[in-house]
């Protein structure tokens, strides 16, 4: 028999922690399944045990997570850290792997709070040791107190990149250059959203303060044609700015072009998804409570579309209130009353997002790599190979698996999917959404055959596959 719970929350970032805290408080038997060793997700990574003594380095927004984690610990929700969720189906049977053993949990309702990942930034040389994402560097800072020894180059655009630069400045880390890739044309798209952002966004003041902190950092704007170069490891970064080719010697390049929802689990479960043309990503189709197209499965936080950490916690709470209604713990009237503060806070935290989406939209050159640039890090397929496949009739990402194995390596398309989709759509002259995405299936993360074979099974299931 599978273990049963009222509510399973997948992911212990702001959405998952807030959801579990609400649900446990309403008396639901709640379990939180999380891959990391401690709660907080990536945004509040290592909040309980970061070795950074100087609180000002990470900043006040990071430390807001303490309250969320403390409430979660006090809530009575069960926490299973170090747990990989590799399957979720429409009946809410959840396949997990922990300490090398796989098993299933049956949930009355499930909240997928798997958060975001950084958008792929495929440039020539991005697979070289010495090239990492800005998010990875920030994780090293939060969880291990590590900063680069030698001057580092940051490239891309978006709030996380500037935040990391500011945190490095506070920590005394030298920044060789901040290469800003946001095209000037983004302002044309963004300006009509500026009034809403300027009047109402909680990020206006923070953003201006951050930009102020970056005074003195060598900054190049309108950067294009970025390349990571070196033999077996990064030696230099080259780029074009103002029509001139430049080169900077460095042994660490940190890339960032915003974040996109982690959709592997919601896709594999069978939830309906829509293409978000403003954020250039897929996101699960949800209602105002976060309920997906599948009964009893919710998606909360940045995994349902990027709105940031504060909004994520509120979206987690809303999903938990509706899950409690669905499980008969509260009625709809009570749900609405209890959820009113979260709904109000979500509305506030979401204002002005369209401005940020437009201003930090990644440039086309970074989404549509060319030639022998690797686009699939697992199978080491190149942009040119994708175009060759399209030329001989490959219609979309899912079919490309049969041509190049893109999407079939261990990362299951997380690092190549958006690029493959964009390249195929551009080559075929079609809108990006129309070529579709990989058909994602469980297991959404690799587990061993030994674990699968050792799963508890009924006598009927065993008989069905035994010979003789």
């Amino acid at each position, binding site marked *: 028999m599978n273990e049963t719970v009222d509510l399973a929350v997948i992911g212990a970032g702001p959405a998952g922690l807030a959801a579990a805290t609400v649900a446990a408080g309403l008396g639901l038997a709640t379990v939180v399944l999380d*891959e*990391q*060793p401690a709660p907080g997700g*990536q945004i509040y990574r*290592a909040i309980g*045990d970061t*070795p950074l003594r100087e609180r000002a380095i990470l900043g006040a927004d990071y430390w807001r997570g303490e309250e969320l984690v403390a409430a979660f610990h006090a809530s009575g929700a069960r926490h299973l850290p*170090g747990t990989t969720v590799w399957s979720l189906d429409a009946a809410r049977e959840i396949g997990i792997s922990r300490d090398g053993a796989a098993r299933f949990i049956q949930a009355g309702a499930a909240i997928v709070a798997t958060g975001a*990942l*950084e958008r792929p930034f495929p440039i020539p040389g991005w*697979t*070289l*040791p*010495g*090239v*990492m*994402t800005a*998010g*990875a560097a920030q*994780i*090293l800072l939060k*969880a*291990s107190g*590590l900063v680069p020894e030698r001057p580092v180059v940051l490239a891309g655009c978006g709030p996380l990149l500037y935040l990391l630069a500011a945190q490095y400045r506070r920590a005394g880390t030298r920044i060789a250059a901040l290469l800003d890739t946001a095209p000037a044309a983004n302002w044309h798209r963004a300006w009509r959203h500026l009034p809403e952002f300027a009047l109402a966004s909680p990020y206006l003041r923070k953003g201006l303060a951050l930009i102020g902190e970056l005074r003195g950092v060598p900054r190049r704007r309108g950067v294009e044609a970025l390349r990571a170069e070196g033999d*077996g*490891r990064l030696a230099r970064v080259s780029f074009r700015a103002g029509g001139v080719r430049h080169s900077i010697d460095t042994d660490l390049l940190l890339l960032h072009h915003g974040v996109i929802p*982690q959709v592997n689990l919601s896709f594999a479960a069978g939830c309906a998804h829509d293409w978000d043309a403003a954020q250039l990503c897929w996101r699960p189709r949800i209602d105002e409570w976060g309920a997906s197209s599948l009964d009893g499965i919710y998606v909360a936080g940045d995994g349902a579309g990027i709105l940031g950490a504060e909004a994520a916690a509120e979206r987690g709470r809303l999903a938990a209130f509706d899950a409690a209604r669905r499980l008969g713990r509260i009625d709809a009237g009570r749900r609405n009353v209890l959820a009113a503060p979260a709904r109000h806070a979500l509305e506030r935290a979401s204002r002005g997002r369209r401005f940020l989406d437009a201003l930090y939209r990644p440039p086309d050159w970074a989404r549509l790599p060319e030639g022998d640039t690797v686009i699939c*890090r*697992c*199978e*080491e397929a190149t942009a040119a190979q994708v175009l060759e496949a399209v030329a001989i009739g490959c219609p979309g990402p899912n079919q490309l698996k049969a041509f190049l194995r893109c999407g079939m*390596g*261990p*990362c299951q398309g*997380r*690092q190549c999917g958006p690029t493959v989709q964009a390249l195929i759509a551009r080559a075929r002259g079609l809108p990006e959404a129309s070529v579709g995405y990989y058909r994602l299936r469980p297991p959404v*993360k*690799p587990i061993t055959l030994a674990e699968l074979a050792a799963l508890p099974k009924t006598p009927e299931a065993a008989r069905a596959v035994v010979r003789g």
Partner: protein
Amino acid sequence: MRLSVDGRPVEARAGDTVAAALLAAGVLDCRDSAVGGVPRAPYCLMGVCFDCLVRIDGVDNCQGCLVPVREGMRVERQRGARTVG
């Protein structure tokens, strides 16, 4: 805390993941890729990219960024694709 990396002793901070411990110890690349046999290093550090795959205590293909270090842990660099058996 002490681990071994390809047989060499490496000091690590308790609480670090294997991937962070390798980077802190100056071990930049942790494997040669499965298809092209070229060096790779941790890229995302959040369980997404699978570029930090290492052999830990005899088990292949462990995501170094998700495994906390333990005293006496044996970490080995992976060269190329794994073989079955």
